[in-house]
Structures are given as C-alpha cells and as structure tokens.
C-alpha cells in the first residue's frame, strides 16, 4: 500500500476510534494508540504494512517531544539537574543493566549478548513515560523530575551504547568513531548552540514581523528538523539535539509561540509512533513461544521495577512514590529496538532472540499503562484514609497579561513590584524587544489562540488581564477564556462604552474604561483650579461615577437596542444634573452639614 493518503486515512481513523475509547475506559491514550496499531497492523486487519519505515518516520515525534521538553527547561535549571542526570542516571543504568544481563545469561544467552541486551532493556521509553507523566500532570512533581533526569541520561547513554555494541561481536566495529567522529560530534553540538543561541531569535523576529502565521510554524518545524539532521549527520541522537535546542530557546520570547506551533505535530507523530510500536508487536513469537515470552516480559518488568524502586531513595523520589517511579520507567524503550538491530547485525545477538526481545519490549511498553492503573488501585485504598500533600510545585505565573501596551504595562509593573510573577503575551515584536531589555518575561504570540493561551499556563493561572487595544481581539479572547478556562478571573480593559457593554454582557465584572478614571481625575483638577475644594471635587466626581455606572448597568440588558439606549443615557444625564444641582444649592445656602 504505497498510497500515502490512504495510509493516513487508516492511521487517523484507527486513532480517532481507539484513543477516545481507551481514555474513557481509564486505560490512557498510549494504550489506545498501541491497540490501534495492533488493530491495523500485520497481526490485526493488515490494513497497512511497512512497519519499520513508519516507526522510523514516527520517531520524529520523539524528537519533537524532546524539543518541547527542552523549551520548558531553562539552562539554569538543567545545570541544577546535572547531579540527578549523571549520578542518578548512571546508577539506574548500571543497576538495572547488570541484573537484567545476569537474568539473560541464566536464560542461555552468551555474556556478550546478555550485556548488550541487558543494557538495552535498562533504557526506558521516553515517549511512553513522558506522555504518561504529562497526562497525569507529574512533570513538575519531584517524581516527574527524577524520572526525567533518568530518561535524559538514557538518551545520552544510548548513543555510545549503540556505537559500542558491534565491538562485542566477533566482527568488531566498522570504525566511524575515533578522531574524525568526535570532531564531527563536537562540531554538530557547537552548531546547535550557535543556531539556538544566536541565529534563531533574530530570524524569528523577522518572521514574526512579516505576520504570516504559517511561516512561523514552518520555521519552527524547519528549525527542529534541521537540528535533528545536523545531529544525525554527526552520528548523534536527533532527540538530544532537539532537546538542546529547546533548552537554548527556553528563555526566549518565542517560547510559547514555538510550543503551541510544534505541539500538534508532536502529538500526532508521537501517536503515530505508538501506533507503529503496536503494529510491530510480533504475535508470531507470542504464538510460537508464549511461555518464554511471558518470562521475558514479566521478568523484565519485575526485575527492572524492583531495581528502580530500590534505587529510588538515592534519586530523591519521595517515599510514597517509589513504586510510581518504578512503574513509570520499568518498560524498555524505543532505543532497545535499535540496539537489538545493531547487535544482530554484528552477530552478537541471534536472530530468533532479536524477534523475541523486540516483542518483549513492545509488550512491556503496552504494559506501562496497566502497571499505572494497578498502582492507582493500590494507592487509592491507602489514599482514602489520608491524602498525601500536593507534590505539584507549579512554576507557572498566577497572572497572564494579554497586551503589554501602555495599559498592560502599568498593570504589569504594579504586580511585578509586589513580586507577583506574570506571563505576558504580545504580538508586537518591537514592543517585546523593549520590554525584554528591561527584564520582563514577555512572549510573542496572538493571545486569541487557544493553544498559546494554554501554553502560557491558563489552566493553572488565577487571573487573566485582557489589556489588548483591539476590541474584536479583546472580545475573542474573553470568549475563548470563558469557554476553555472558566475558573480564570478576567480583568478587562474597555476601549469605550460599547466595548464595556460587550464585556459586561459576557459576564466580565472587573472592567475599566481606559479613559474614564483619568478623565474624572482631570475633571477634579479643573474644578479645584476653579476654586472648588479638592475634597468637594472628589465627592462631585464620585457622584458622577456612581450615576454613570448606574446608567451603564441600566443599558446593559438593552444595549443592542439603540433607541432604548439613547433614552437611558438621556434620563441618566438628567438625573445626574438634578443631583448635582441640589448639592450646589445646598452649598450656596452655606450648609456645611454641621461643620463649623
């Protein structure tokens, strides 16, 4: 089946059918994709073939995922994590790899094959673990951070592992390492640093200024694909390169825009990747040697899980979450497929074992959601009596300010002066540049896009300040926020009465007309200059404000009816004049309300 559209039809249909069902029944999206893959694959309905090339293509989803993870992680935090990554990661690889290798020797493999396969099985699946952690909001929790540190080390360790496996074989390696290889690798990493640090931001600025949105998306993809190719060309991990580029761009103003542009591609490709894994489960092996396969899968999960739980305290995993940590990382990952392939080619691993182990890896990946469900069931019983403290330490700002023009800036500066972190969205590159020079966290993007709003942390923020000057955009954003993030309190800027009414009609209660308060202030000053006492001028302005608000609120139910609106405005004005006239008369009669 060479028809790409036909293939796309099958993949998308399978995903659309299976994933919601799996999610609904509490199995999680990953298992849904795996089931979809099995359904359409060579052991199901045989709707698509060519598993390997699909898997290869879809691995790009993992690359995009690591780019996005990098975007979330500033360089400073990555440096803080170095002990967890290198210390914790190497401990995990050594402990799990050694015990798994011993187990494989016991099952009859040569020591060379056992070491290669043991280490390969010690690698976990970044795709599955991270997807699962995201789904459960665990990435910012301590267990999520420890897991991620381990996964990051595995991504680094996988490269030398794949390079060294051939040396275990009789044939030996084919070279490619040594000085030229190392120089190429260093060159590629330097290239990524230069691209991420120096070239990308000015380029993105130019592109943002052109205001062609899809070109920005195209550039974002170009950036990640380019970096992936650069790394692959130097024999390094594409995912690692993308991760590095992400980290370098984490502090840039385009972070949220990149995130929201890349996220859908990542989601789809990662889904495709899981589907491909589902298709690659070789049920021939299951039928041929069910007992041995069962021993491999269960043995892998039990041995690796136990080792993970044992080393968890060293990795600063909270005591109550040791088995969650184990369940998250117990499966083997996508790198194992590659290592097995290389090991077989180097005649380290017999062909039948390669098939068996590949099936075991895929099944272990499929088992992860089930392990987590089991973990939930077990802890739910305990949690009924006592709920553990919320481990989520959220680093997102409680306030999002959309529009950092003259209006938003004042709101933002007052909040910042109180030490309240804010996330700012603006779509004027020049404005952003200026603000960033003064140390503000400003991100480029159109706040009326749901994905960007979500990327800015709208789901966790308390407050959205809508300070956009365009009335249509402001209303669109309010509609969007009220529909998608109903818990978010909205503080809105109204350009004029009409805009005020439109906002109030949408249920926004904290609205300020942008010129109203300052006009009242000027009116007070004018009165004072003309001899009215300042305190009196204030009372007059207050009376005006009150009456004006009453008029607005009276207009609210009828503001689309022009005749009625005009009548209300007129009667409001008359009432105000009547009140003020009464005050003035009282003053002229010398009444000072009893003051002497």
């Amino acid at each position, binding site marked *: 089946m060479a028809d790409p559209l036909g293939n796309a039809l099958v993949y998308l249909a399978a995903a659309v059918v299976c994933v919601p069902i799996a999610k609904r029944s509490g199995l999680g999206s990953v298992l849904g994709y795996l089931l979809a893959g099995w359904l359409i694959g060579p052991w199901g309905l045989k709707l698509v073939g060519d598993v390997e090339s699909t898997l290869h293509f879809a691995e790009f989803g993992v690359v995009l995922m690591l780019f996005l993870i990098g975007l979330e992680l500033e360089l400073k935090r990555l440096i803080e994590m170095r002990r967890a990554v290198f210390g914790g990661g190497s401990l995990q690889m050594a402990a799990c790899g050694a015990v798994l290798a011993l187990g494989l020797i016991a099952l009859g493999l040569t020591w060379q094959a056992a070491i290669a396969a043991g280490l390969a099985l010690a690698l976990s699946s970044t795709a599955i673990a991270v997807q699962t952690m995201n789904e459960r909001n665990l990435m910012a929790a301590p267990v999520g951070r420890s897991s991620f540190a381990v996964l990051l080390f595995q991504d680094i360790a996988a490269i030398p592992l794949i390079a060294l496996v051939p040396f275990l074989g009789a044939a030996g390696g084919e070279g490619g390492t040594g000085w030229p290889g190392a120089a190429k690798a260093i060159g590629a990493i330097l290239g990524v640093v230069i691209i991420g640090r120096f070239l990308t931001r000015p380029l993105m600025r130019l592109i943002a200024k052109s205001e062609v949105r899809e070109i920005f998306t195209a550039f974002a993809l170009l950036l990640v694909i380019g970096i992936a190719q650069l790394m692959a060309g130097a024999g390094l991990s594409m995912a690692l390169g993308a991760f590095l580029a992400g980290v370098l761009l984490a502090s840039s103003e385009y972070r949220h825009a990149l995130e929201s542009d890349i996220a859908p591609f990542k989601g789809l490709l990662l889904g495709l990747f899981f589907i491909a894994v589902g298709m690659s489960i070789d049920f021939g092996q299951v039928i041929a040697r069910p007992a041995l396969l069962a021993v491999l899968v269960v043995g892998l999960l039990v041995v690796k899980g136990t080792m993970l739980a044992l080393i968890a305290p060293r990795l600063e995993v909270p005591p109550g979450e040791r088995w969650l940590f184990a369940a998250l990382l117990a499966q083997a990952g996508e790198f194992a497929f590659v290592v097995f392939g290389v090991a077989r080619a180097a005649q380290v691993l017999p062909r039948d074992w390669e098939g068996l182990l590949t099936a075991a890896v895929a099944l272990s990946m499929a088992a992860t959601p089930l392990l987590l469900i089991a973990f939930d069931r077990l802890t739910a019983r305990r949690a009924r009596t006592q709920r553990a403290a919320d481990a989520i330490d959220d680093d997102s700002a409680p306030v999002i300010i959309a529009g950092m023009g003259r209006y938003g800036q004042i709101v933002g500066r007052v909040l910042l002066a109180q030490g309240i972190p804010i996330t700012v969205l603006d779509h004027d590159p020049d404005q952003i540049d200026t603000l960033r020079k003064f140390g503000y966290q400003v991100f480029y993007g159109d706040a009326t896009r749901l994905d960007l709003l979500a990327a800015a942390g709208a789901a966790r923020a308390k407050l959205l300040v809508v300070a956009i000057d365009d009335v249509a955009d402001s209303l669109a954003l309010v509609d969007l926020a009220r529909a998608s993030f109903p818990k978010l309190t909205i503080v809105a800027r109204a350009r004029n009465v009409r805009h005020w009414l439109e906002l109030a009609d949408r249920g926004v209660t904290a609205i300020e007309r942008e010129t109203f308060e300052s006009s009242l202030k000027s009116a007070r000053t004018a009165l004072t200059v003309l001899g009215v006492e300042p305190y009196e001028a204030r009372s007059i302005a207050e009376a005006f404000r009150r009456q004006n608000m009453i008029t607005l609120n009276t207009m609210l139910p009828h503001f689309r009816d022009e005749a009625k609106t005009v009548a209300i405005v007129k009667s409001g004005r008359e009432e105000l004049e009547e009140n003020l006239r009464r005050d003035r008369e009282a003053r002229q009669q010398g009444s000072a309300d009893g*003051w002497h």
Partner: protein
Amino acid sequence: MIALIYAHPHPARSRANRVLLEAARRVPSVTVRSLYDSYPDFEIDVFAERKLLLESRLIVWQHPLMWYSAPALQKLWFDTVLTDGWATGEGGTALVGKSCLWVTTTGAPSAGYTPEGVHKFPFAAFMPAMEMTARYCGMHWLPPLVLHGAHQIDDHALHHHAAQYRRRLQAFAADTEVARG
C-alpha cells in the same frame, strides 16, 4: 518651626475655623497642612507628614469637633503617621520632647457641656483621648484652646479668640528663638 495640621472637610465653607486658621497663618514660622485639601482621596503621604513633624518643635492639631472626636481624616492621620516604631514603641522616639497644642471648636456653647446640658459631661471629659495621643508619643501637652458655640459666636468674640490663638503661637516661636539664641 510650627506644624499646623488642619482637618476640616469643607474648609471654604467654614466660618470659625477659617478665621482661626487665617490668624495662625500670619505667624511666620507656621506651616499649614490642610489634610482634606492635600489628601482628598484619604491617601496620606506619610513620608511628607513625618518630614514636616521632624522639622517642627510645636505640632498643632486644629479641627472642628465632630462626634466628640477629630474628623475622619485626622484620625486616619494619627493611625498612619504616628505608628509603632516611629512615634511609639521600640525606637519610636521621633516626637519625644516636642510640644503639642490642640485647637478645636464645638457647635454647642459651653453650657452644653454640663450635667444639665445636651452633652451631659464637662468638656474636660472629652479631652483625655487627644491628650494621651500626644503624651503617649512623648510630647509635651500644652493647655488646649477650645472655642465653644462656634455656630452662633459673634464676630467680635471670634476675632478675640483668634488673636489669643495667634499670641500663643507667637509666644512659642519667640521662646524657641530665645532658647536657640
């Protein structure tokens, strides 16, 4: 220097207090701070107020009496300017040794402040709160200057009272000069 803290919500409509204030204003070393004119939004610039107090040896509180007490903004002034650590408590010695003069007017004539009068108590019964505010800050409490019957008082009596007020401020200013010189 003399700081005159004036609290009248309607200074332009006042009769008695305006006459008194104009008399006091003619004493050269007096700085008048009209609270309702300076802070119509009830947002007192505490720093500026304290600066004035630190530069002064005599602090005058002048206001009409309302509900047996100072007008609301004068009370807010006490609450925000005379705080713990500045005017009172540990390290709160900013006003120690300064003098304080209370100048007030009442609508009722002095007969109102008798057991048979509308206010039932002698006027002295309403003074301790103000006196202790000053003394608690370490200030020397001068005999207050009180004008009763401010609504009905005739011009002659009012101006006589105002002159008395001015003389007391002048005497204080002169004493300070002597002490210095």
